[in-house]
């Protein structure tokens, strides 16, 4: 914004918004002071430091373990269950949690534990596809804009800005009303709406790295643009990209389940965690467990993903720490 001469436009402040540092990842004031005074206080390798930083983040480690357990349960659970995912137990319809049906049954007697695990599997699968696809699209576009600059970058930047002002929820709703969504189409749609967040980060990193000496050296050695971009610069942007991709899993889970809750997400009978809540919200008064259990899984997954992302940020992207 040329109107703000100091280069500190309010937009910048907003854009740089929550750096998301949990208490443990801010370096202790003593270390900051010591480093500021020019003291050389570490002597370990980068890999070792990364691992140490991550390990110190006990919550992130626990989160990773819980996530792995949840994913295993979602994948293995339905096989071990005596009930099929659409099998109806007509003697026990609308039941709350019982010994036979630990999560209860739905209005037509389907076992909710199997459906919850399957729902978790679909939700997680969608979220992973969204994270991968978003990261892929965002990284490629952001890299192209940041590396080539000029007109290319202007187009990339304006596209990013345009996507950022489009109300994503409205688009999802409008499209969702018209087209019955499958897990893959929802994932694809979310990725199309979310890629600018990654692209902006990657573009910024490429803008910064392309002026650095190792890139200039590679250029002088005659390396072509794709090689410089993907062999020389990309590895340096690995940390922030992985962190953002991880956090995207949480964003995708929340968005997907919200859409399902509003009735425009993945169409039944395919269960997702959001679908399960949508199907049961009418029985909130009589059987809250049918809403609270899938809700609890959503929160557990997102919480773990956010802790994990934060730990990874601390470990892989220490420069992002505010100190």
């Amino acid at each position, binding site marked *: 914004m040329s109107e703000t001469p100091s280069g500190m436009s309010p937009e910048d402040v907003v854009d740089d918004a929550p750096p998301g540092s949990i208490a443990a990842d801010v370096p202790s004031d*003593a270390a900051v002071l010591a480093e500021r005074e020019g003291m050389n*206080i570490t002597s*370990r390798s980068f890999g070792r430091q990364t691992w140490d930083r991550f390990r110190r983040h006990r919550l992130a480690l626990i989160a990773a373990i819980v996530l792995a357990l949840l994913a295993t349960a979602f994948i293995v659970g339905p096989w071990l269950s005596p009930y099929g995912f659409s099998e109806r137990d007509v003697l026990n319809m609308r039941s709350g949690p019982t010994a036979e049906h630990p999560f209860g049954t739905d209005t037509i007697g389907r076992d909710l534990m199997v459906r919850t695990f399957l729902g978790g599997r679909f939700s997680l699968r969608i979220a992973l596809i969204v994270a991968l696809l978003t990261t892929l699209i965002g990284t490629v576009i952001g890299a192209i804009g940041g590396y080539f600059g000029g007109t290319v970058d202007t187009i990339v930047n304006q596209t990013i800005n345009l996507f950022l002002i489009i109300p994503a929820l409205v688009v999802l709703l409008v499209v969702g009303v018209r087209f019955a969504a499958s897990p893959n189409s929802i994932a694809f749609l979310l990725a199309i709406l979310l890629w600018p967040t990654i692209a902006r980060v990657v573009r910024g990193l490429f803008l910064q790295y392309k002026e650095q000496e190792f890139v200039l050296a590679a250029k002088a050695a005659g390396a072509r643009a794709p090689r410089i971009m993907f062999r020389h610069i990309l590895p340096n942007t690995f940390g922030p990209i992985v962190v953002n991709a991880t956090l995207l899993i949480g964003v995708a889970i929340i968005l997907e389940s919200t859409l399902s809750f509003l009735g425009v997400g993945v169409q039944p009978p395919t269960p997702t965690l959001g679908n399960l809540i949508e199907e049961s919200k009418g029985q909130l008064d009589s059987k809250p467990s049918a809403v609270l259990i899938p809700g609890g899984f959503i929160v557990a997954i997102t919480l773990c993903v956010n802790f994990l992302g934060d730990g990874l940020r601390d470990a892989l992207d220490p420069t992002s720490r505010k100190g």
Partner: protein
Amino acid sequence: MSSPLLSVRDLSVAFHTDDGVVNAVNDISFEVHPGETLAVVGESGSGKSVSAMALMRLLPSSARIQGTIEFDGRDLLGLSPRDMRRLQGNEIAMIFQDPMTALNPVFTVGNQLVEAIRIHNPKVSKRAARERAASMLALVGIPDADERLDNYPHEFSGGMRQRAMIAMGISNEPKLLIADEPTTALDVTIQAQVIEVIKRAQEATGAAMILITHDLGLVAGVAERVQVMYGGRLFETGPTETIYYRSRNPYTRGLISSIPSATARTERRLAPIPGAPPSAINPPKGCVFRPRCQHATDECFTEPGLRRLDEAALHQSRCHYAEQLGEMDTAASGSRT
């Protein structure tokens, strides 16, 4: 000699970090007498700034401070926070390194000067404080001082901001002024001016001063005594003349030979000391300067103590070979092979 204004005994500062204990300052002792100027010289990381912050009690609570600091008959480390605040900015004032960030950007310069005056003199009216602030700005050489009070820091140049910081520092006529690298962040062309202003301000108030710098060249003509620090330790201390011409420490000599000289028209080369400052967590065994020292021998694997080099112990050096080091050849003191 008069009784010292400031007497520091066996001061040590350590920080506990995730990587281990950082021993920033190790057992340093020194005195400052009323009205005199002591220069503390060393590279970044030598512990000079940390020890100054310890004097001001500005270190974070995680810092472990040992030793005694006696100022004007009071034990600074034992004072309650409230009593300490009465001294801060009043009897002991500090000027910081980076004037670009040391002033609060959202308040006018006048506001910040008046605040400094009135916090210690609540009875002074706003108008009187403002007049005093204007006269302080005038003293440090800012023209149209009265109008300039209404400017924000960003409307001042770097040199002017540092002048404003100096004005703030002396506005309560402190007994001790601590200037922490006051010219490092400034353009070379105005460094000399700012040093001049600091001297003038010091003379106007009669304050003693601790001038912290990494630039030994800055010290000449300003400080009566010089204290060289390295790796959190006191390496050499003595009258400025002595340090300049009869240094008995290889590290100090290295510093001297890296001073760019305007007077020496010879082809004297600038000779920075090779190597990097020691790790504060795992310092080298023995003398901390040993890995960079051209005179190092096996004996240097045991840590040397401070050696007195004259009767009054004015000149002391931390080197096993303090007495044996040859006379300095000023013109070729940088000659190393």
